[in-house]
């Protein structure tokens, strides 16, 4: 996940361009759900809230949320405080919280550090805000510990399959139709590689590209089980693709610092499993010439078996939400306004504002999906709309004290397996041993 952050920033940067093309969609009334409950407690006194964000020049979502909220609640001003990008964000935020100088509202960039914040009592109980949210909001449960909610999701990227329609047509191979299992994906990738001068697929070097799907789609899989054999079939498929030269080898990807944007954007690969943040990036790059001009679409990510395939089923994928929590050191008279902000950001108002700049909100109502698909350049076919809006998204980093340690261990296993330094079974057995030793699990 860690390496996703630059891409995340970039996509947001390019989303600025989209915002210009997409017209205004930020002018929504505040959520009628949780927003009203907390709004009632608010006075008309002027309130200034501070909100943490990162790389504000290239990540417009914080300012967009702040502005659209202030529009709905004119007595509240939201000032955005800039923090470092990447891993620096959490390091700086932890330091500021410990020093008592952190902003009133701060972002949970992913779920990896959520346990540290919540367990360290650095997040206010906001269960009342959550109880008022639309039940369709994705990722709400991920922020619960012992039945108490400590953050609300405002953004929920999830992984799907991007594919190049032109290359499929050139190879004379049927496009994905939403019924694919991983075996279909591997078979098609090899067929595309045989027919074309380019790779059938591009899987980036991140551990999540293999492990995120395995964790989400395998029955009984759990990071804190200490048994990682569920990863084996996913690795075997990835190695099969690599050995068949249907995708670039892990060594080539890492040593040449290949970027997935360039690989898919310049038609070096026909398919790309990637998160929804890439939609905005790809559209912007096609506009500014960094990516070539070709027709593309989005399909549900392949599944383990046919029980979750097809457009009448809900495909299972993964993705950590991005959430907002309240610093417990906030002035008491600002709490109501801060809760109103959270309700707004996670509700229809925030969702529509975010969709208007090409960001995937946690709440995907019909209106929000319409806003998103009205942006110039977003594919308008039915399968793309289905893939974007229908999925069962499981967390990449389920909240637990051991998650950060286990992800580190599995990261080592990933590089050992993909570089073929170690066999799948040996690397996973070693991961289990280390999980027992270093995290005391299994």
């Amino acid at each position: 996940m860690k390496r996703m952050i630059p891409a995340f920033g970039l996509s947001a940067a390019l989303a600025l361009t989209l915002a210009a093309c997409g017209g205004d969609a930020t002018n929504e009334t505040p959520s009628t759900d949780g927003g009203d409950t907390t709004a009632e407690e608010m006075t008309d006194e002027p309130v200034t809230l501070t909100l943490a964000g990162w790389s504000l020049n290239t990540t417009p979502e914080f300012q967009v949320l702040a502005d659209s909220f202030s529009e709905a609640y004119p007595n509240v001003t939201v000032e955005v405080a800039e923090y470092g990008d990447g891993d620096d964000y959490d390091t700086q935020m932890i330091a500021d919280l410990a020093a008592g100088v952190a902003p009133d509202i701060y972002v949970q960039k992913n779920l990896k550090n959520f346990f540290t914040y919540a367990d360290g009592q650095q997040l206010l109980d906001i269960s009342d805000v959550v109880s008022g949210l639309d039940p369709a909001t994705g990722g709400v449960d991920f922020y619960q510990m012992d039945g108490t909610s400590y953050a609300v999701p405002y953004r929920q990227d999830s992984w799907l399959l991007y594919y190049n329609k032109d290359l499929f047509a050139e190879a004379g191979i049927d496009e994905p139709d939403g019924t694919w299992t991983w075996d279909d994906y591997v078979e098609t990738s090899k067929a595309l590689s045989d027919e074309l001068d380019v790779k059938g697929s591009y899987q980036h070097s991140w551990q999540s590209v293999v492990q995120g799907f395995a964790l989400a789609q395998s029955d009984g899989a759990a990071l804190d089980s200490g048994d990682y054999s569920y990863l084996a079939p996913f690795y075997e498929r990835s190695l099969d693709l690599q050995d068949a030269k249907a995708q670039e080898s892990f060594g080539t990807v890492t040593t040449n610092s290949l970027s997935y944007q360039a690989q898919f954007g310049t038609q070096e690969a026909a398919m790309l499993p990637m998160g929804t943040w890439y939609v905005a990036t790809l559209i912007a790059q096609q506009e500014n010439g960094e990516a070539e001009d070709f027709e593309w679409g989005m399909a549900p990510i392949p599944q383990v078996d046919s029980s979750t395939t097809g457009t009448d089923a809900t495909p299972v994928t993964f993705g950590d939400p991005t959430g907002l929590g309240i610093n417990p050191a906030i002035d008491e008279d600002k709490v109501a306004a801060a809760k109103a902000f959270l309700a707004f950001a996670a509700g229809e108002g925030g969702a529509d504002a975010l969709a208007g700049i090409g960001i995937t909100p946690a709440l995907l109502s019909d209106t929000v999906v319409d806003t998103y698909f009205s942006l110039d350049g977003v594919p308008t076919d039915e399968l793309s709309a289905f893939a974007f809006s229908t999925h069962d998204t499981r967390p990449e980093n389920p909240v637990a004290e051991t998650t950060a340690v286990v992800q580190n261990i599995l990261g080592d296993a990933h590089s050992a397996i993909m570089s073929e330094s170690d066999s799948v079974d040996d690397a996973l057995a070693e991961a289990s041993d280390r999980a027992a030793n270093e995290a005391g699990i299994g």
Partner: protein
Amino acid sequence: MATTSVDQIHGGPGPSVPVPPRPLRRSRGRLALRNTLVGWSFILPNFLGFGLLTLIPVVTLFYLSFTSWNVFGTAQWVGLENFQRLIGDGSYHTALFNTLYYGVFHIPLTLAASLGLALLLNRKLRGVAFFRTVAFLPYITSIVAIAAVWNMLFSPEFGPINQFLTAVGVSNPPGWTTSADWSMPAIIIVSVWRDMGYYMLLFLAGLQTVPGELYEAARVDGAGAWSRFRNVTLPCLRPTTFFVTVLLTIGSFKIFDLILVMTGGGPGQSTLVLSQYIYNKGFVENQFGYSSAVAVSLFVICLSVTVFQFVWNKRRDA
């Protein structure tokens, strides 16, 4: 010391000036205080920086190594628990082994390469300044740029190194940074290449102190180039060699940045070193107590090796 200062400030030799004893004492006392304050004011900025940014953190680190602390809340005293955990921690053992592996090759290879370069560039050749600059350039180049370029050179399929090896008949060239067996040698190669220019400068400085008469005398006695090097150059360079060895040893144990950007400690744990383990445990996993214990162990290792080197050097001097 105080007398000298007083004399200087009075502008003349003390005894020749008839000054009543009591006022002199008082004025001397005041001046001594003033001088002390002036002295302190000179070192204060540096000492403040050192105290705030090094001394206090280091003392805190020692304290934290006996605690369990995840940043928030108070650190819980756990006594020697963290150090006991080190004994059974396989990843710590791997990191320690890799650090020693790196040091065992990096120290002598860099020493030899930098001394060789210094000897080569100590001659009166045309353009020697240019070559010295070229040799020093890697040291001042951004580590991230170095890592990116070397990673490409080492690329197993398309990298020029393996293409060259294939061209000269190596049928199965190494996987370098993508192979658990070859990743550390790759790091060592880049590291020696990067560091040798800096240590070359130190050796060059040392070579300027070797008296030319010794070489002349050796020549007169019929000593060849190798004999002159062994019996004149090397003994005269001993203080420099010792200094370079100590710096290289500490530098080797502290290696972090190059590995972090080149391999991130992988593949697997094949290039995980102690500094990165400290970073992972602390800043990635928020186990600051345990992370501090690993840091203390690294400190003890560095200190022991350096003390051993000093003692050994002293014995040889004697």
